[in-house]
């Protein structure tokens, strides 16, 4: 048994306690998975406030439906699936272009770490980020989710397939399309 598994409370025990209404046990689960749940939400909505709100909603829904959680899939996959579904629903409700942020995107770019001031490299990096965000917003929620879950969250194809509830082949083809689309944008920035 590893040190980590000895010091950290057992997940199934935490889930059992949370099912009986133990908020403290559920709090430990929230601490454990919050970062990744936010990451999954962010993969679809690409807006920090929306992602945080969705992540909170994910945990609340999970708490409400803990009784129906069976251990057929892992708890984390179950959580990420809720987050992805909520995020994709939101994205569809609000329309594809509602997340194209003008001032907000500029604001986030301004918060990027700046070690070389207004040098050409920094400008091109900002430009790259801006164009990438714009390109990500042009993707469908599913394509966007697949590429960000892979590249940013580092999930495997099988995990992505589980979370988005689509076949592994679909994950591969969506990833290929999204990469090609974004690569074209990267190329144009590099050349421009």
């Amino acid at each position, binding site marked *: 048994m590893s040190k980590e598994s000895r010091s950290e409370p057992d997940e199934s025990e935490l889930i059992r306690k949370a099912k*009986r*209404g133990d*908020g403290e046990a*559920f*709090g430990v689960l*929230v*601490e454990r998975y*919050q*970062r990744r749940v*936010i*990451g999954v939400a*962010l*993969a679809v909505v*690409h807006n*920090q406030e929306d*992602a*945080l709100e969705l*992540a*909170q909603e994910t*945990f*609340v829904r999970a*708490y*409400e439906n803990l009784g129906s959680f069976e251990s057929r899939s892992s708890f984390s996959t179950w959580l990420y699936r809720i987050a992805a579904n909520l995020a994709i629903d939101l994205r569809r409700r609000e329309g594809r272009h509602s997340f194209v942020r003008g001032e907000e995107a500029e604001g*986030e770019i301004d918060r990027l770490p700046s070690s070389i001031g207004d040098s050409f490299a920094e400008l091109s*990096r900002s430009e*790259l*980020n801006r164009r*990438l*965000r714009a390109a*990500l917003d042009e993707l469908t929620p599913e394509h966007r989710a697949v*590429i*960000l879950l*892979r*590249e*940013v969250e580092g999930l*495997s*194809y099988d995990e992505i397939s589980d979370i988005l509830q689509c076949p592994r082949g679909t994950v*591969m083809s969506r*990833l*290929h399309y999204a*990469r090609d689309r*974004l*690569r074209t944008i*990267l*190329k144009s920035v590099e050349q421009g």
Partner: protein
Amino acid sequence: MPACDQVKLLLGPFDDGELEPHEMEDVALHVVSCGACKVALDAYRSLGVALRDCVRQPSVEGFTAAVLKRIEQLPQPLVMRWRHYLAPLAEHVGASLSLVAAGAFAALVTVWLVTPFADRLVHRSPHLAQVASEGKNDVGGRSEQTLGAIPSGSSDESQSPMIALSNDPTTTVIWLPNQP
């Protein structure tokens, strides 16, 4: 060796390490000798770096507290509310029930152990002559039923019965012959 068109579709999964071992080997061999595919692979890698740089995680400070606050505000199901109040009580009741069950078990075991000895004591008592328990005497002329003689367990008493029992539905007579 596969052609560029075939390899192009596999470059992403190759970079992700998601191909079968033989496919990994095929793509690796191709990329080493094909400049265009190597450029495409590098571009995929650059894209990954750019995306990780582009998407940044928000601060999670206060996140758990906010979630728990929302959960506290949820209407609690009736079962859960009752469980909250009854859980401490149930612990005490559970302990008491265990104690009572253990006591009852001990009593049963004691009765079971003592009863055969008590029975033997009664049967071997030398001065018991006759015990008759009589309820209502039925004078309606019901015939007596002789239920039988109960022989003694020991060999020297086996010739004469120790107890003769005579019974009708309302009267029970137990006769114990005088013992020397």
